[in-house]
């Protein structure tokens, strides 16, 4: 006998309230869907994509790959060596961008990178070359999204050949992802600052921080404990009040705790300067976001595992370049679906206010794409002191994200929700149908090049990214049906 005809009948209802009430009057257990119409013009695409019989299995495959991906800290290397990046080529955050359309902080960061790479004498010179699209010696200037190179970068996300990057590996598949080293807070390149102190810090990072970290990371990788397990630290930080995007304090402490012995163990290196070691530890300790630049590539690695599953509606990247917000989807290959980046809503530093804010910027929304950051806010109620709102908002935000995700992460859990797994795997169709947009916790960059960070807050993608992706998925679904 079927369940329908033999069991107790409890009913889920979507639609007219009187029909639900009539069931309750008959002592039937009723659960109502809080249904609301999706945006006009999307209904046909929603139907087509939901009717795509590849979808359920494709999503299950994609999201299980994301959940299964590991992440260990394999190495720290110069970008030129790790990514083969040539002088005059700059990686940047978000979907593809021309200098012409770049926002203030993106321009500022590119200027800083030109100065840092000794390609320009001063900011005006750097700007002129960037506008011309050519270096003074005639070689072209290339702007490339980090995401096209297995890389992610916070805020402006600019990576140039001389910068050092973390190399994160998935031991299962051997795949790699990369991210620059975090510069700290205040006036920094990633927020678009390019003053002398910015360039000086970047130079120290390449000369001292990078090489010492490399030494420590390689020693650790070669030790009996093996390479540092980044995913395991992420799981722990969620239990210690971090959400892995705008709060990385516990994660940073755990990273430092792991690396200090390797930094101090100097018996095989007579040239090691103990004051450099102290500076490195001081630098890492003094920057609560230092671990963010390991969280991001760990997330990137996981989501890359979910790419290119035909029929899957899983979002595999959300990234902003300060002008556009773009998403990529498993079932639509490398296509970006973009819309104008929104200005975050949040708290401002000092005398800064909303007028000073640049639209949303950075690859760091890869954390939300992977189920943490804004999605795991319930794990980090203290974050609300930094970005606004209260603890209830943190709980409600995480709960709401389950409405648009495909799964719950088996390892990354939220203690206050009874160790429920974080909401993992944004489903394009669910976002369009519910109108619930992914919640992103983010820093706010100054609008004017050179300003740096002006605040932190909450932001969402523009809805059109998702309707555009859905439209493409619908086209592909129809094509697969007829082929």
């Amino acid at each position, binding site marked *: 006998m079927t369940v329908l005809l033999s069991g*107790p009948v409890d009913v889920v209802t*979507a639609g007219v309230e009187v029909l639900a009430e009539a069931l309750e009057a008959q002592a039937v257990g009723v659960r109502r869907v809080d249904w609301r119409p999706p945006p006009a013009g999307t209904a046909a695409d929603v139907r087509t994509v939901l009717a795509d019989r590849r979808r359920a299995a494709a999503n299950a495959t994609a999201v299980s790959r994301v959940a299964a991906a590991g992440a260990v800290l394999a190495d720290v290397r110069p970008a030129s060596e790790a990514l083969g990046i040539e002088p005059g080529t700059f990686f940047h955050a978000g979907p593809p961008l021309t200098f012409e359309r770049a926002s203030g902080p993106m321009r500022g960061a590119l200027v800083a990178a030109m100065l840092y790479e000794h390609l320009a004498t001063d900011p005006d010179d750097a700007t002129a070359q960037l506008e011309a699209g050519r270096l003074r010696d005639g070689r072209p200037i290339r702007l490339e999204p980090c995401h096209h190179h297995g890389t992610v970068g916070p805020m402006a996300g600019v990576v140039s050949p001389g910068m050092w990057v973390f190399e994160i590996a998935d031991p299962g598949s051997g795949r790699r992802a990369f991210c620059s080293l975090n510069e700290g807070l205040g006036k920094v390149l990633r927020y678009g600052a390019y003053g002398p102190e910015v360039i000086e810090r970047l130079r120290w990072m390449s000369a001292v921080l990078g090489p010492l970290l490399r030494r420590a990371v390689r020693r650790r990788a070669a030790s009996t404990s093996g390479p540092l397990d980044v995913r395991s630290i992420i799981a722990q930080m969620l239990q210690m009040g971090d959400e892995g995007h705008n709060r990385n304090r516990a994660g940073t402490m755990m990273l430092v705790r792991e690396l200090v012995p390797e930094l101090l163990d100097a018996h095989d290196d007579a040239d090691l300067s103990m004051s450099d070691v102290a500076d490195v530890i001081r630098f890492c300790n003094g920057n609560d976001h230092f671990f963010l630049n390991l969280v991001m590539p760990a997330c990137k690695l996981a989501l890359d595992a979910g790419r290119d599953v035909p029929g899957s509606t899983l979002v595999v990247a959300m990234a902003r370049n300060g002008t556009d917000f773009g998403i990529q989807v498993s079932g639509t290959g490398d296509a970006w679906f973009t819309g104008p980046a929104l200005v975050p809503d949040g708290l401002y530093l000092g005398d800064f206010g909303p007028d000073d804010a640049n639209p949303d910027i950075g690859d760091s929304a890869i954390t939300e794409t992977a189920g943490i950051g804004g999605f795991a806010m319930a794990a980090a109620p203290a974050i609300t002191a930094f970005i606004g709102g209260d603890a209830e908002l943190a709980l409600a935000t995480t709960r709401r994200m389950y409405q648009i995700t495909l799964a719950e992460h088996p390892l990354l859990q939220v203690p206050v929700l009874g160790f429920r797994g974080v909401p993992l795997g944004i489903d394009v169709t669910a976002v369009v*149908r519910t109108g619930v947009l992914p919640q992103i916790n983010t820093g706010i960059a100054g609008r004017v090049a050179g300003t740096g960070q002006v605040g932190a807050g909450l932001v969402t993608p523009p809805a059109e990214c998702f309707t555009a992706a859905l439209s493409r998925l619908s086209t592909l679904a129809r094509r697969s049906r007829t082929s």
Partner: protein
Amino acid sequence: MGTHVQVLRGRYHDSVTLLATSRAVASVAGVGSAQVAMATPLNLEVLESMGFTAPAASPDDLVVALRLDDDLLHRGTDDEGVVAAAMAAMEAALTRRPSSGGGAVEEPDRTTAAALRRAAAPLVLVSVPGEHAAAEAWDALDAGSSVMLFSDNVAVADEVALKREAARRGLLVMGPDCGTAVVGGVGLGFANAVRPGPVSLVAASGTGAQHLMCLLDAAGVGVRHCLGLGGRDLSADVGGLAAAQSLRMLADDDGTELVVLVSKPADGAVVERLASLASELRLTVEWAVLGAGRPDLTEVASTLCDRVGSAVPTWPSWRPAGTPAPSTAGLLRGLYSGGTLCDEALAVGSLAGLGPIASNVAFDPGWPRLDASGPRALAASLADAGHAMVDLGDDTLTRGRAHPMIDPSLRLEALADAAADPRVRVVLLDVVLGHGSHPDPAAELAPAVSAALKESDALDVVLCLVGTADDPQGTTGQAEVLAAAGAHVLASNAQATRLAAALASGTPAAGAEEGS
């Protein structure tokens, strides 16, 4: 060493609760050990073995056995005080209920998929606007739930795709445009409260199914399930996908002894396929195809009574209050809210020798068609018509207002018009009770019937009342109010139609069909 044994008559608690209770009582100061247990022979044996004197008690009784601490100084109170404290602790432990478990508010589920992920359900009832309905239905099928699609305006291609997938997964999609279903006694959409019984319906017609179920309920036969198909399922386009799946599911349903398929005339090839499927399944299916020259629903109900070995009852009816109208001939006005009931009245009426009956429903191509493009056009069209039968639930008449089963205003106007028309001899109405319908149709209709009868001495109002004793509106109460207002009230639509036709043709023995 003191002991205390007490029997509490007729109090049952489960062993897990009692274990926790024993522990709570033993922790009371002055209590050395405690046993709180049901007085089963076994438990009494255990008490004996512990050195207690087992009391006279039955297995329904609760026995409390306490061994008190010797050290009076240590406990600081007398035996009585300790026993009282122990009994209070026992009561507290026995009446403790688990807490509700957290006050945090869950986010409401915004899609059927999210709701079903939270907890599975065998059935999803979808009534969102048509263009969005298939999405919720796909969610349901993907989660392994069957669907009732109350929504209309769902594309045929979506209907076919959903029903194919449902069959593949052993699930059922009822609808789109499925207004009535009953699953295990649960009425969905427009449905009556029917008692359980051995007959299951597979129905492409909403009010037809309701009428048949109410007759089966009145006959004491009862109904197991009524699986709705939606109006298009038996067309060549859809090919009877839901009907076939319904038959498969009912063949496997132990409570179903007899299946009746209720529909208007359907695609011949589809019916043939379903018939061969039924015989393959060794399923007994009664085919109730409605239309001219075919058995009406009342005859179908009688057949079904025979088939399950139940006596065919006299179908309930209620005589009108007041003096009968003179036996003159005149026009018939059928003002129906149920489409299938209107069809049936046309079919029955066509045999009653009234001649052509105008209608907004296509029935006999030789008969005049009413203009039902809107309420005004209809009123004008009726003013010139002879005998007429109107389906007031027609899409063109319900635009911008609720269905006449919920909103009676359109019908009340038509009733007043008929009363004002001296040519009209009898008005024939249906009233459909049950879940989803107007909560008290008699309260609206009875004054209008009274007023109509007051306006015209030569008028009769005949009313088919579709309902059951257990319906929220209560069939008997509704019938009595309507009869008191002067209407002939009958449970059978066919009988009501024949009575109305007889009255319209001036036949004196018109009342013959009314029962008790």
